[in-house]
């Protein structure tokens, strides 16, 4: 039996094969008779594959110690207050957020208003600072033709970026 399975816990050939479904996930183990005996697998009432897998797992579940990098808010704080610490918390707490939002709302994706003006402004600001850097570099490197081009583009972008008329 060249390709016969080895016991998951030692090197002997596996003779006990177990499949359990825990939380909709299939877990399989293969054990030799001695190990199966030692783990109590032969006693069906007292055996939980999940327990065994969890104990031997190298990555234990994180237990409430997620911390927002930007404001220091923790999962414990959220449990206490039901509020988050800052906008970045939504990035840090993503993993436990989604199931919560699913029960709280009518969906988990925003389909409403987008701050259009703020986004336009950001695009323009980014473009301006890029052009300013380019211009500085061109001047330092004495690439005057490039510099002139950047300068013209800068004044053009600045003009379009003037304050928008307010909505009444």
């Amino acid at each position, binding site marked *: 039996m060249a390709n016969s399975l080895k016991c998951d816990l030692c090197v002997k050939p596996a003779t006990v094969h177990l499949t359990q479904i825990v939380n909709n996930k299939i877990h399989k183990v293969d054990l030799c008779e001695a190990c199966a005996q030692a783990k109590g697998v032969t006693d069906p009432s007292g055996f939980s594959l999940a327990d065994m897998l969890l104990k031997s797992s190298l990555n234990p579940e994180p237990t409430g110690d997620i911390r927002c990098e930007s404001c220091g808010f923790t999962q414990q704080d959220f449990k206490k207050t039901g509020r988050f610490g800052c*906008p970045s918390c939504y990035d840090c707490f993503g993993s436990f957020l989604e199931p919560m*939002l699913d029960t709280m*709302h*009518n969906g988990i994706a925003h389909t409403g208003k*987008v701050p259009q003006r*703020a986004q336009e402004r*950001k695009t323009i600001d980014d473009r301006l600072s890029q052009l300013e850097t380019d211009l500085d570099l061109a001047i330092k490197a004495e690439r005057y033709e490039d510099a002139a081009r950047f300068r013209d583009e800068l004044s053009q972008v600045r003009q379009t970026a003037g*304050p928008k008329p*307010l*909505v009444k």
Partner: protein
Amino acid sequence: MKINELIDSHSELTDTSSNRSAVVLMTRIRLARNLQKHPFPGWAKDAQKREIRDQCMQAVAALPQMKRGLAIPVETLDELQKQILVERHLISRELCHSKAGSGIIINKDQSCVVMVNEEDHLRIQVLRVGFQFKKVWATINALDSNLEEHLDYAFSPKLGYLSACPTNLGTGMRASAMMHLPALVISAQMEKVVRAVGQLGMVVRGLFGEGSDASGSIFQISNQTTLGESEEQIIKHLHGVLTTIVDQELNARAKLLETDPKKIYDKIGRAYGILQNGYLLSSGEAMNLLSLIRLGIDLGVYADAQRGLIDRLFIECQPGHVQHAAKGAFEPGQRDVLRAERLRAEFAKMPAPDFSNTTS
């Protein structure tokens, strides 16, 4: 504008009532907004809160919609002034309790308010008398877009506007209507309505929001969820539900008049008698009596011209307003005397009910 000027000037809520506001007294929309890269008010240090407040108040006060309004830090208001603003539905009770670094901006006719550093950095609110979601949404949407010109909102393409509490995530919008539903209360159908509305994803609250009672048969009905649907969809959905409730209320009124008119006449007539002759009236009792007079106006028992007065009294019978009118701080017992005095004076001028031409 100064706070006392504002309190004594005409406001959207107390001076613009019309028969279009028969069942829906007021429409209101609020948006929760936050600045990016700043901790939410509940987690920010006092110095950070003050910095956020300065930035927000400057941007808000510069808006054309808020011209010649009031912009003031909360800590400069005394308890009575805050209470009056709460009674006018301009600020929340939560904001009153906030310590340092909160602010209020109110426009001249008291229809637009921005609370700074309540639960979120900005709580923008627009209210109008009557059932007017379209108009209110257009106003608040423009105000919000203008503000966005000057402030960098915390926004995620996936989750929408980021709020301190995940229940406000997405649109950050709560749209609500204040409804006067006396016939549904009298005919004991309100519980059924609350349950049905809940199943449709809406919430029913009392006059002053969460945890308040429904004295005067006045209820606030609003959307519960804020993420997953657009503002227009949420409003459309809510509008549909509210229209059904208005119909239910009108049906209930017709049924009361048809099956037991004497019972309803008796209630309306007695309310008039007590308001004209009472010497001790708590705000709860006054609200319930005024509610019956208002129902009388809707049914044609009193002249429609009286509606404005009743809607104003709903607000001016609240404890803060009673004390403001009497220029002092008074114990609840003394307030009941003052309230009854005011109501006696108002109702002495009001013509007697005429039950001969009731319509529903």
